[in-house]
């Protein structure tokens, strides 16, 4: 069955420190992969997406993610976290290629807390 796992429910980092949020997926076909961020009281905003090509993708707000097919992972990284990055982060997978129905499967989410 298709699934997405974010192993870390809650992460706390100090402002200025580096960040890595983990995402593992289980998907039989070619996956489309996404990271979304949700600030308190807001809807979801797309940070970045991977469809094909270069496995290191750049997103907004200084985030990047690396697709590793051998590990079924799509981890999100940022070299230096800002207090405004405190939010909930969701990894999602969707059908690629001709199976692209637009349906997404989301992970459970990781809440990021930033210490001053």
């Amino acid at each position, binding site marked *: 069955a298709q699934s*997405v796992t*974010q192993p870390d*429910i809650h992460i706390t980092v100090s402002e200025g420190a580096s960040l890595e949020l983990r995402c593992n997926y289980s998907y039989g076909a070619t996956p*489309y992969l*996404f990271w*979304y961020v949700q600030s308190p*009281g*807001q*809807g*979801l*905003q*797309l940070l970045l*997406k991977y*469809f094909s090509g270069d496995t290191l993708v750049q997103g907004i707000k200084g985030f990047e993610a690396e697709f590793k097919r051998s590990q079924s992972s799509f981890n999100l990284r940022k070299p230096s976290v800002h207090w405004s990055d405190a939010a909930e982060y*969701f990894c*999602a997978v969707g059908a690629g290629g001709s199976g*692209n129905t*637009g*349906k*997404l499967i*989301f*992970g*459970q*989410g990781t809440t990021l807390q930033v210490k001053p």
Partner: protein
Amino acid sequence: DVKVTQSSRYLVKRTGEKVFLECVQDMDHENMFWYRQDPGLGLRLIYFSYDVKMKEKGDIPEGYSVSREKKERFSLILESASTNQTSMYLCASRTRYEQYFGPGTRLTVT
């Protein structure tokens, strides 16, 4: 910019009431989605729609129905609200490669 709006940010209803949650998008997208978001469970798909009057069940459709009479509007209906439907409800519409989300409606059923 794509805009997806939801009719209410907060809603309080009583058990047994019929509840309508409205979603409107302004980008002529064919595909629209309704999710519910619960702590520790992420987002789960309730229903989605490919086009006007077209709908398909998602992963958790029980207790919900939907209506899509116009392309820009997708409504989620709780026929008889129950306390276990207390949740955050998110609507989205989609281009070929990206879903755009509304701000969400936090529904409390008492």
